[in-house]
């Protein structure tokens, strides 16, 4: 033994081996260390909208003004601003021979008015034009605008998803052809909620969108829930969520095809929603070969204030973001280094 320790050549080889092993160990430990010392600072939140179309004649002007208001804000704010805006147009609809959406007719009203995809496209284009124009000499700030519907009602299915993708393509073509795409980036969104509809129809809708979106980064942001899904433990494919959904369904509609990305509702003040989405990501890691990549968090603090409060599900944007960040970064399996956006719903 003493002979070995006295042999310089053996010592050098032993040292090299030890060095490599220690370096690899250090490299693997660096992620948890980075997690432990990361200071979670929520990004400034943007406002997203439940669209109240009490006067359809105002639709385009209303959205132009929304875009212009954001553009003016960015023009008046130092530096480059990075925005995501979800525009929720109610539920999928079909009237006559036209796909579209049934939209709210008043703040908090459950009554609706039908808007065709052509009307919605025109309004979203005006949002983009308003933003581009009102940023004036600010040529670097950007808005990612994602028009969406929820998954309630009987029109949810493949054909409507496909029509929504065609509409999103039309919006993008118009924005590009007019030279606004350096600052206005087009996306789509789906408020996929377990309590609104069954998993089969919702997956069909997502498949319709995925088959027709046609690339060009017209990604579909799932701004929905994981309602009733596990908040702890080791979820499997069939772990139950609300209304007959299972964990695998939620993973699929938020991440399972090429254009899908989650930007989920983190409403619950006790942190349950963040835990549920962490569980979905963990399930994805263990059974699908990789975790979800979250683009941000969605809250509805402002909408709750407008509606007189909603106790227990009125996370502030910063709290929602922090809850999601803390849960996914505490586990190396679901870790991601950036959680880009925080956005908060409001009624117009």
């Amino acid at each position, binding site marked *: 033994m003493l002979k070995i320790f006295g042999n310089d050549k053996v010592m050098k080889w032993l040292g090299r081996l030890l060095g490599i092993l220690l370096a690899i160990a250090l*490299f693997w430990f660096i992620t948890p260390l980075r997690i432990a010392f990361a200071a979670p600072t929520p990004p400034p939140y943007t406002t997203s909208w439940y669209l109240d179309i009490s*006067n359809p004649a105002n639709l385009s002007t209303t959205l132009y003004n929304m875009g212009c208001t954001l553009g003016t804000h960015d023009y008046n704010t130092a530096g480059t601003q990075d925005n995501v805006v979800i525009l929720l147009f109610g539920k999928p609809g079909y009237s006559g021979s036209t796909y579209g959406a049934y939209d*709210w007719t008043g703040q908090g009203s459950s009554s609706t008015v039908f808007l065709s995809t052509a009307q919605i496209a025109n309004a979203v284009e005006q949002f983009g034009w308003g933003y581009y124009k009102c940023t004036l000499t600010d040529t670097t700030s950007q808005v990612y605008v994602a028009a969406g519907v929820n998954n309630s009602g009987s029109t949810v299915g493949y054909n409507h998803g496909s029509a929504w993708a065609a509409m999103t393509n039309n919006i993008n073509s118009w924005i590009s052809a007019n030279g606004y795409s350096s600052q206005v980036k087009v996306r789509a969104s789906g408020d996929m909620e377990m309590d609104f509809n069954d998993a089969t129809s919702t997956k069909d809708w997502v498949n319709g969108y995925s088959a027709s979106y046609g690339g060009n980064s017209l990604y579909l942001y799932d701004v929905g829930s994981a309602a009733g899904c596990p908040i702890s433990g080791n979820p499997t494919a069939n772990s139950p969520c609300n209304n007959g959904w299972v964990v695998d369904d939620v993973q699929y509609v938020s991440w399972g095809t090429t254009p899908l990305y989650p930007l989920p509702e983190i409403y619950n003040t006790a942190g349950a929603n963040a835990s549920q989405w962490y569980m979905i990501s963990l399930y994805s890691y263990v059974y699908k070969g990789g975790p979800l990549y979250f683009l941000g968090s969605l809250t509805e603090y402002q909408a709750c204030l407008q509606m007189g409060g909603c106790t227990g599900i009125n996370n502030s944007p910063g709290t929602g973001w922090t809850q999601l960040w803390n849960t996914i970064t505490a586990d190396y399996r679901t870790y991601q280094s950036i959680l880009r956006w925080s956005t908060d719903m409001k009624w117009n």
Partner: protein
Amino acid sequence: MRTLLRTTLITMLITTVALAGWSFVRQTNGTKNAKAASGLQVPSYCIPPELAGIQELLAKTTDPNGRQLLLAKEKDAEQAALNCAANATAHPPAPKPATAGLLPTSVPVATPTLQVGLQHAELLPVGIFIPIDNGNNMWAGFVNGQAVQIAAGSVRETDENWRQNHPDWQAHPELHTQGAIRVMVNYDGVNAITYPTPSRNGAVDLIAACGNLLILHAADNTIFTFDAAKLIFVNNTTSCTLPTP
């Protein structure tokens, strides 16, 4: 021992630097590949933010299934960047005006007309209330001179521990939805009030209206009666002839 320690430290340093370099190259290669393959100058605004996330996951994902989806997402994002770059050449950023401002909106809409009686309406979820999509989901009428609209359905579960605390849900999950109605007076959605049914028997629809008494039918065939004048659930169903659900 000194030789061992020195060699260990030097090798460790070299290996750590090599590993860090390898990790960095793996994360940035995708974008470089896209640029190199196209020969296009890709403006920074053309790089989708999703791409960096995908490449971060790719750098640490070894499972073939996981990589397959990530590679498809990466390829899509890279192609999108190239398409954007090509478009940027064809349609450069539009000139902007020197000033800009908000546009005026037209006058508010006229007072809505109330379609009275039981009906099926295209309703939307609001807050915690989720309207039912089957059968009659709305009653509208005038009560004490005020326009009253009552939507039927359920409320979403805000208690995420409910399932855990009620294991009996597994036998009939649909029956454990909390039925509810939402009452809106004079088209005021902000101050609308949601009334849960007295017991948890699933989502409800409307099957009859007898004056101000509304008869509700739950998923497990339980019948509830709501008094639209007093805005309370009552026990009285005797004045109504109920259709068979």
